[in-house]
């Protein structure tokens, strides 16, 4: 591996990321997959980085899942997205920051479509007006929330309580980054580092002391693929995709996996359990699985947040190995009896959910 080569590629794929005043749109599925992530993100943005992040209560799904499952026609999707833009415009924000990779991909795709086919945009504007009476401005800047964390990785690194380093050996943790397909595969120029050698997560990990490992099936999809997962009969294919990745990364002995997509952590995490149930295979070291994190969770960990506050107990593949390696101080016994009494919240200065 020649790092200079990669750096050269990364240079070609810089993207503009807004400084402040973000209009944050949540993901549909992350709320119940790993609810801690978005909470932690907001806390980091607001409290650690003091940024203005606005959430609109009327925000809805972007229908991405429906769109990619071929059950919502693109025009409908566009109109729904137009409404999101309208809400943002009304709120007086211009920097759209979706939490979901698929939403990000979808917004990018739609904006690109409108750029090439203005008449479509016009039609959508008319439809939105007719349906809701709303009007919208297109976002000035569109960045995925992982882009933003990437932008401020140094600031976070400066505040970091822990580093992604094995405190026994002093070795950097070996980290596998997994980028959601819709992040850059459709529009390489819209992703930090492009589609072939994405830098967005790599940047964070390097900054926070970890070491990224590059393995053959890096590009491979986690297997969510909407239709593949949603239809039970197709799940065999879905899990096979994850398995392909695990088999390929195993020899590199990764300590953890970091992801920037709602679906990927879910499937990379849960499928490890399923594969183990079906074939008795585990891919981590000494008989464990490979812990899977979202980038917000990792950021939270390095900033020293309480793992259970980050919702790591929601992971099916235990995260403790990593916690122990980086030396997080946590109370194992609290894992499943987390009492969210105001007192506890005070003690752990929990932001009000």
């Amino acid at each position, binding site marked *: *591996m*020649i790092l*200079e*080569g*990669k750096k*050269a*590629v990364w240079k070609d794929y810089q993207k503009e990321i807004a400084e402040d005043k973000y209009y944050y749109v949540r993901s549909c599925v992350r709320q119940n997959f790993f609810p801690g992530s978005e909470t932690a993100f907001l806390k980091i943005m607001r409290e650690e980085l003091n940024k203005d992040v606005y959430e609109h209560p009327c925000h809805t799904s972007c229908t991405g899942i429906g769109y990619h499952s071929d059950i919502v026609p693109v025009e409908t999707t566009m109109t729904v997205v137009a409404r999101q833009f309208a809400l943002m415009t009304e709120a007086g924000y211009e920097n759209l920051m979706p939490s979901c990779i698929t939403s990000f991909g979808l917004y990018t795709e739609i904006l690109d479509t409108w750029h090439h086919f203005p008449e479509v945009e016009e039609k959508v504007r008319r439809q939105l007006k007719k349906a809701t009476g709303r009007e919208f401005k297109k976002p000035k800047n569109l960045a995925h929330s992982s882009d933003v964390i990437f932008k401020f990785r140094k600031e976070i690194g400066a505040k970091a309580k822990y580093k992604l380093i094995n405190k026994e050996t002093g070795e950097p943790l070996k980290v596998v980054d997994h980028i959601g397909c819709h992040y850059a595969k459709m529009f390489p120029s819209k992703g930090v580092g*492009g*589609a*072939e*050698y994405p830098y967005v997560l790599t940047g964070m990990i390097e900054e926070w002391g970890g070491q990224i490992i*590059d*393995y*053959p*099936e*890096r*590009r491979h999809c986690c297997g969510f693929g909407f239709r593949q997962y949603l239809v039970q009969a197709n799940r065999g294919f879905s899990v096979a995709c994850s398995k392909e990745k695990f088999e390929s990364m195993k*020899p*590199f002995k990764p300590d953890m996996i970091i992801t920037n997509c709602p679906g990927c952590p879910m499937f990379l995490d849960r499928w490890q359990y399923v594969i183990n149930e079906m074939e008795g295979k585990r891919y981590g070291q000494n008989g464990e699985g490979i812990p899977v994190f979202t980038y917000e969770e990792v950021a939270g960990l390095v900033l020293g947040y309480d793992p259970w506050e980050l919702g790591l107990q929601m992971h099916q593949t235990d995260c403790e190995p990593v916690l122990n390696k980086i030396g997080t101080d946590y109370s194992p016994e609290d894992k499943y009896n987390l009492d969210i009494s105001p007192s506890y919240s005070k003690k752990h200065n929990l932001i009000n959910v």
Partner: protein
Amino acid sequence: MGKHVVVIGGGVAGLEVAGQLSKVGIEVSLIEKDSNTGGHLNKWYKLFPDRRKSSEVMEYLNGITVNKGINLMTDTSIEMFNRKRDHFSIVTSGGKELIADAVIVATGFDLFKSARKEEYGYGIYDNVITSADLEEMFRKGEISLTNNTIPEKIGIIHCVGSRDEKVGNFYCSKLCCVTAVKQAIEIREFLPESKVFCFYMDMRMGGALYEELYREAQEQWGVSFIRGKVSEASETIDNQLLIKVEDTLAGRPLKMKLDLLVLMAGMEMSEGGKKIAGIGGLRTGENRFFAATDNHFGSNKSDIEGVFYAGTCTAPMNITETISHARAAAIEVIDYLKCSN
């Protein structure tokens, strides 16, 4: 007849045409951007189809140019050139102005920058090289990996930067297939223990003796040809290259580990050529090469009277064709100079 012709580019075409013109007593200035003439020929070890040393061709070209009263200007590029009534004024990088009765553009080609096919990881993975790099190894007389071991399984990918809309090249570079076959054979000669696999979209063995070479590669050297475009390469933990391709003839995807991956870089309009096109206002085609006035009987003529093309600045050509094209250019020029009297 005391005419003066400026030839831009000292590659095969430039040298040939310069030689031909000086033969009939025309004063020739040959402008070469590099410090020595010969262009890509210098990089190549042996040539298809007969695997003769490229130096032999170089000897021939020197034979018709060296000490033939040609005014050779190396390390020189063109800053300006425009038509003044019946002649051309050319300003070189040295600030020198040349007055010419005719100009021959022989700016040749550049090899496709293989790093642009990111998925093959040229410049990123240790043991991904281009056809040119391989020739370099041949000239050094040793094929080895970055860890100085000898490769056992070598893959050759055809059509890198050719027939590929993704990199904006729709055209076929025409020489890569036969180069691949030639290099496959040479690899087997160097490394009798090695296995060589060629991944092709079509085998375009158009030229004389190409097919015979292809057959030899299969029969005598046991080179395997697999039909399918490699989609991606990645490095394994033991520093091998894992490639993914569809074996289109088996109708199945195929996964294979290789020690060395050779990319058959295609031909593109040279940077120098683009510059000339800009300052000289010369028309280029969709393939970005210079556009001649007629595909059949005007392949040396530009839209500007007195400006002619020679060689691969108009389209991918092998050396044989380049030399013929250059000779044709010489005839066109002589003809033009006669009439312009």
